[in-house]
């Protein structure tokens, strides 16, 4: 509008012309352009960036973005049985309240004086995770579980001085891809076969491949394919016998009912904290953890920040970085791998989640999940032509095979989709040997009515 004042954006206070002028006068410059004197003309960008907007009024901005987002259909509008590494668990309101607090949301790299609360919250996160996994050291979160797995393997390699890692063929292809990328060129990744009846690791193959080269025997529990690896102690024993470390990737939400990995010999435990209070966020809710014993040879190999506790002269609890000199922050490429901005806020949130659940809650939750899962497995297995792929016990995911129905997973899922159900993850591309199989996930959010609705939709889909 012609008679409106010169434009000042709400995000840029010093655009006010008089203020600009006053500041330039203080600086002794004529024009803001002068301040860019260092950038030679030939490197100046003279064009216009092809960016829509500006949508300067928040009202228009919000409506614009909202109208795009409203094209999405949520797992509230659809009934979802997708898992495969990102899970729909219930997120308590207090988790959201805390991670949306302006202070936590916008803090960053302060010191343990003025950011005491951030340090304490992350120390407490480490401490509660430690109880869950039964280890004495846990790091401030890494990017995601895949990164935690990759770093765990690198740590094992540095600790053992060896350059090979053995991983199960059933593992998450996504996670495997990250690990391979991250371990190149230093560490060779070799895959281990599995028992087709149970999905569990083929111990014979493990024994054949474990050697003096082996830095780590890595396995998932529960596995990507949902079954529980019941012979963790034997796997660890083979690893240890060949001088390797046993590295176990766990779903932390299972640890109210499943044995913590150190009980079956794990030296390093790692995993993803998304299930502990993070919304799925289209895959944006992940954070990784690594846990070990409190031994110098382990602690010194973490690339991550490790927040520790102490008291000061006044008897106050104080916090700080443990063994900071190991990090790349301190010594650049001489540090252990690298550290940067990872997923701290999710760590705080996972702490809130564990504090809310407590020892009983986490056990009850695990039980509820297992009950619901078994109920779903039982009902689905009763559908004509449909069978469960593996006989091993499951925690919250399981593989359903449709070969006997003459339908592909894609067909089944399309039929479910029409009934507003997201069927399980199609495994036929990543695991062709499993035929037309899909990975179904059931959690505490799925009521009996939800499961029954799935079963009846599946029945219809395979008719």
């Amino acid at each position, binding site marked *: 509008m012609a008679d409106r004042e010169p434009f000042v954006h709400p995000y*840029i206070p*010093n655009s006010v012309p008089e203020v600009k002028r006053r*500041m330039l006068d*203080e*600086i002794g410059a004529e024009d803001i352009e002068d301040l*860019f004197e*260092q950038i030679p003309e030939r*490197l100046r960008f003279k064009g216009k*960036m*092809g960016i*829509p907007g500006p949508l300067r009024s928040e009202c228009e*901005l919000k409506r614009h973005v909202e109208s795009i*987002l409203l094209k*999405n259909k949520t*797992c509230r509008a*659809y009934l979802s049985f*997708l898992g495969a*590494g*990102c899970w729909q668990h219930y997120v*308590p309101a207090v988790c959201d309240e805390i*991670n949306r607090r302006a202070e936590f*949301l916008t803090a960053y790299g*302060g010191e343990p004086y003025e950011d005491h*609360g*951030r340090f*304490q919250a992350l120390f407490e996160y480490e*401490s*509660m995770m430690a*109880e869950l996994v039964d280890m*004495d*050291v846990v790091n401030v979160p890494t990017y995601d*579980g895949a990164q935690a797995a990759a770093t765990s393997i690198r740590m094992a390699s540095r600790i053992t001085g060896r350059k090979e890692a053995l991983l199960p063929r059933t593992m998450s292809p*996504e996670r495997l891809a*990250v690990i391979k990328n991250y371990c*190149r060129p230093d560490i060779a990744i070799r895959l281990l076969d599995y028992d087709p009846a149970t999905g569990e690791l083929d111990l014979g193959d493990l024994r054949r491949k474990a050697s003096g080269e082996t830095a780590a025997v890595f396995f998932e529990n529960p596995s990507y394919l949902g079954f529980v690896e*019941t012979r963790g102690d034997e796997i660890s024993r083979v690893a240890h016998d060949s001088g390797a470390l046993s590295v176990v990737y766990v779903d932390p939400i299972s*640890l*109210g*009912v499943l044995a913590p990995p150190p009980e*079956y010999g794990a030296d390093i435990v790692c995993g993803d904290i998304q299930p502990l209070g993070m919304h799925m966020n289209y*895959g944006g809710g992940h954070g990784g953890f690594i846990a070990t014993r409190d031994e110098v040879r382990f602690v010194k190999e973490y690339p991550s920040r490790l927040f520790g*506790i102490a008291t000061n002269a006044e008897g106050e609890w*104080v916090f700080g970085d*443990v063994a900071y000199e190991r990090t790349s*922050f301190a010594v*650049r490429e001489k540090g252990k791998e690298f*550290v940067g901005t990872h*997923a701290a*806020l999710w760590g*705080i949130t996972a702490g809130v989640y564990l*504090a809310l659940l*407590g*020892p009983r*809650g986490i056990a*009850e939750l695990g039980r509820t999940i297992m*009950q*619901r899962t078994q*109920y779903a497995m*039982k009902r689905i297995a009763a559908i004509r032509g449909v069978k469960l792929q593996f006989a091993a016990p*499951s925690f919250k995911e399981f593989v359903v095979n449709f070969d006997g129905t003459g339908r592909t997973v894609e067909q089944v899922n399309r039929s479910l989709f029409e009934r507003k159900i997201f069927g399980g993850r199609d495994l036929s591309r990543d695991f062709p040997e499993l035929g037309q199989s899909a990975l179904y996930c059931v959690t505490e959010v799925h009521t009996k009515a939800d499961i029954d609705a799935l079963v009846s939709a599946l029945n219809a889909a395979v008719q």
Partner: protein
Amino acid sequence: MRETRPERDETDVKKGDRDVLRRFHEAKWDEPVIFELSTAGERGVLPPEVEKEIADEVGDGVSSLPESMRRKRPPALPELSQARVLRHYLRLSQETLGADLNVDVGQGTCTMKYSPKVNDQLAGMPEITELHPLQDEATVQGILEIMYNLDLFMREISGMDQFSLQPGGGSQAMANRACMIRAYHESRGDKNRDEMLTTIFSHPSDAAAAAVAGFKVITVPPGKNGYPDLEAFEKAISDRTAGLMITNPEDTGIFNPDIDRVTRMVHDAGGLCAYDQANANGMLGITRAREAGFDMCFFNLHKSFSTPHGCGGPASAALGVSRELARFLPVPIVSFDGRKYYLDYDRPDSIGKVRTWYGVPPVHLKAYSWIVALGDEGLKEVARIAVLNNNYVMKKVLEMPGASAPYGRGRYRLEQVRYSWERLRELTGVTTDDIQRRAFDFGVHYWTSHHPFVVPEPMTVEPTESYSKAELDEFLNILRHIVHEAQMEPEKVRNAPYNSVVRRIPSAPFDDPDRWAITWRAYLKKQRRERAPGGH
């Protein structure tokens, strides 16, 4: 400069808080560690119980596990009521100096700009929080549209040809670049290139991530201008050079005007050039990676593009490459076929994956929203005002006794400056660490610099575009006051802080394996051991 404010008069009222110091005290709750608050039997949130029919049909569920795989002792988590958990964390939040709360220009290199609340509100909608990454593409067209367009925006801002939003932060983007450089040379059968060039003022991850990817790191030393001159590069470049990872400007705020010559030299030697634009705040719409000859660049969305830092993530970096390198980008790429958006996994030369799924979509959304709120002109104004603010602060800091800004004397800087208090220390014995702690007493952050302290007694300030002159003046008043105190009562500065959450923190316990305690259980064990007869 007065620390206490007398009975206000009208003149005071007019000036507001602009030339008096704030009588600040951070919230101090003296809150115990959460385990200390536990009372057996209290509950915070109850999980659902299963329907009777399910229990009748499958029993307790857990007995399907072999005995050896069952948890015997419940984890020793604390037991608290819901309100107590909430109260605990709310208190800790108040004990955290978020950027929303303070004039956060003292965290140099971090680009602590304003993160608009409307973007957080949008990112909290169930239409993004409740999406599973494997949903049918037809049900996620909205978020894919945002990611796709964000890629397009980034192309405009950088001149690069395609972006991946997968990296979960700047350091991960750096690791990525290293993988892509590796893949590029491998694809050409060029096996001898194992050296990665970088500079000492670049972010530590530039060097560290290259090392992880298997490269030998060559750190080119700076010249008198604060950046390496062309001869230094000349010397460093060879037929072993795989690539260059460089920031420009670095924390010094000094733009290397020869940057296009440097990239040309590297290209001529067969290497690739990767631009670290984590902080691009002083350059948006002003100068771009393309014109400077880079093959790759990345932006930290949680820095220049305003998404909140979240105590250190979840964050996001947008990693861009030239057309030639696009085939190496991680999968999937968000594409558009003219009718619908989809995830393109069909990229045989891709380096694969660096992070689970597709990055951090809520962060992508916030960056998208911030960019469209500003548009082309707005982004340029961001850069202009960020640079104005920085030069204003520099002018004022350099008027303080004992302050200097090494290198490039008398020249303007872009968006930040690494200062030195070396002279102040010589005069008063007060170090940058002391100043830092004293700054907390006035409710602001203060950062020294990355290691190594090439600039002695460093302080890095990055004012961004978000603060008004009045707020910059407040920050300057605080510094001026501390400098004055350093001269008059150095002990006072050295013993700081007084009004922060805790008093002095000893550093020894955190470096001693017998005392460090990274978890509560470790702390308890060590306390017990220390007290045991014959213990340390």
